[in-house]
């Protein structure tokens, strides 16, 4: 019992980076913009969030400012993606890859410029858990769900909010229609460009925030390569979740469990530790092989809409 609680206590914060980045991917994707720069935007978010927080004092309050600035920085990159793909109609994968490099490069450069080369890496406070009164007393559910840090609560609220907006509001229906059939949406008076701009920028902001959470949760230290493929796994997660916020949340639980299992198994002697570390990636590949043909994908995902084009799609 205690083992299960310990495992879930670790796994649920482990979901945060996956959920935020994958919901961001989902958001842009439902409007038809397939962002592939997660890995770069998350690195940028981690670097910017860490640096802002560190320079302001490295406490809980400055961590919150860091998260916000990281989201803003990533959103700015998202706007570049939105502009180049909707107005200039450049290929989404090409721009996404370019932003991936730019994000990784900027993250590393900013850290070097602000911190320089130091013998001991600077550290910020990690986020404290905030137990919710009464609810945190519930056995099993209490310590795992209601005794976590603030970003974990935000993750659950955000997923619920996204579900509500997408499926219960007019705005959400407009957004989904842009991703499914932009021509029809355009004819119905919805501005495809505007919807794509907002969805892409907000989605990128979530990715930046997901990246910024990593140094604030794990060690309080930023290092290059801190994202370690979580950005790419987030794309896989968006597919696994069928581009639906509720299933993305569930899928993230699976991905986080894989990550924590890999950590827990490192002391085992049966499987070499080198291969245990590859566990999350292999699991993602296997899962994708099973779901890829069955999963539902926005019909216009990854394709630019040209209102003056004469072909049917």
């Amino acid at each position: 019992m205690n083992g299960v609680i310990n495992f879930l206590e670790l796994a649920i914060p482990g979901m945060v980076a996956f959920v935020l980045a994958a919901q961001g991917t989902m958001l842009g994707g439902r409007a038809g913009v397939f962002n592939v720069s997660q890995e770069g935007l998350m690195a940028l978010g981690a670097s910017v969030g860490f640096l802002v927080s560190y320079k302001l004092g490295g406490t809980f309050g400055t961590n919150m400012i860091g998260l916000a600035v990281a989201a803003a920085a990533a959103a700015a990159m998202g706007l570049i993606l939105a502009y180049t793909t909707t107005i200039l109609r450049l290929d989404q994968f090409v721009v996404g890859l370019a932003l991936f490099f730019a994000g990784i490069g900027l993250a590393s450069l900013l850290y070097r410029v602000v911190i320089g080369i130091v013998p001991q890496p600077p550290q910020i406070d990690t986020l404290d858990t905030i137990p919710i009164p009464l609810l945190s007393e519930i056995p099993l559910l209490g310590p795992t769900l209601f005794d976590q840090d603030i970003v974990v609560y935000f993750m659950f609220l955000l997923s619920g909010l996204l579900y509500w907006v997408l499926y219960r509001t007019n705005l959400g229906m407009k957004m989904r229609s842009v991703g499914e059939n932009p021509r029809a949406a355009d004819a119905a008076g919805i501005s495809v460009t505007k919807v794509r701009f907002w969805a892409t920028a907000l989605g990128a902001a979530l990715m930046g925030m997901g990246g910024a959470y990593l140094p604030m949760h794990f060690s309080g230290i930023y290092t290059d390569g801190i994202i370690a493929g979580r950005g790419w796994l987030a794309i896989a997660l968006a597919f696994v979740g069928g581009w639906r916020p509720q299933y993305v949340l569930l899928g993230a639980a699976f991905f986080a469990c894989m990550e924590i299992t890999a950590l827990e198994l490192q002391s085992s002697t049966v499987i070499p530790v080198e291969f245990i570390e590859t566990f999350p990636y292999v699991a993602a590949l296997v899962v994708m092989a099973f779901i890829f043909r069955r999963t539902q994908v926005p019909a216009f995902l990854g394709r630019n809409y040209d209102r003056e084009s004469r072909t049917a799609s």
Partner: protein
Amino acid sequence: MTVREVASPTRPVTPPQTPETSVGKRPAWLETLGRWGAQAVPVVAAVAAALLVSALMIAAMGHDVVTAFDSLLTASFDTQFGFVATLHRWVPLTLFALAFTIPLIAGRYNIGSEGQMLVGAAAAAGVGISGSGLPAPVLLPLVLLAGILAGLVWAGIAAWLLDQFGVNEILSTVLLNFVSFGVVLYTAQHLWPDPVGGFPMTDHVAPAAQLPMLGSSPQFHSGVLLVLAVSILVILAIRYTVIGYELRSVGANPRAALIHGVSVRSVAIGALVVGGALAGLAGSIEVAGVQGRLLEGMQSNYLQLGIIIGLIARGSVVAVPLVAFGISVLEIGASAMQRSAEVPVQMVLIVEALILIFILIADILADRITRRRAARAAVVQKLKESSA
């Protein structure tokens, strides 16, 4: 229309067609030269713009721009060591860029050249160590072949997932990179560990497994010539063979290619697998020519650079080796820049990303100018007809 059809990097920039000049009696070679010139102008302008923005950034960080740029652009040509270092960097970059470009021509994205190179390097190191009794003419080809085969298999996994299960190849190739790190560590720490090294790396490969060195001090390894030959072969194969034609047709319009009897599935698989083989070759050349062993982190940032080169070359295999050389110059110059002007070496990635972004923008502008000229020519034509 599918995602693949709108892939712009494979679309060549159509030269501005001015009806007046094409009617004129200019010799053919001048026409060709003019067409090349028209293609070069946006590239040169984009590089200049990227360097200008980088200069502003360097100045903003408080460094000496002139010293920085002097090191960045000339370090490769100032000394012979610099030039050899540039050539040795050119080898993997060209192979990585080809590993990205060949699938791109067919509309597929190979983001896994890093993993393909690493398993190639692991296989090459394994053969090079365990075959230490064999003579060089036998062992060296085996080492190179081991790398090629390993890279081929690694890309083959992604190709199989794509073909059988429809798994997006961007995701499968990139996730296999992270799996390959495990392969490297296992090979370097358990199979053939270096007995003294505290860092994850294998023992040295046998001398017979190493590429012969050429030239006088400083020497360069013969992998340079090998890659030159490979580049020429790839160019010839893509331009002048049926397979190359099918590859290009699938990228240009998969539906039309399918209707005309091209097996779109096998072309996609083949392109990914050949890309993987080239990345695997890069791994074995790094082992046999540069490092003499497998070591963790030997892939450096070649993956990103290969993709940047491939995108700057816009899917042209002829442009790949040239662009790769330019990027190698920048890469070698970057560390000189750090020494002379104290600009962090990470700055070079920004310079390269800027070049790419400006080239993409130049593409759009060139396209718009072409369209506007065509529209204007049409109006002129109509006016002429109505007045006649």
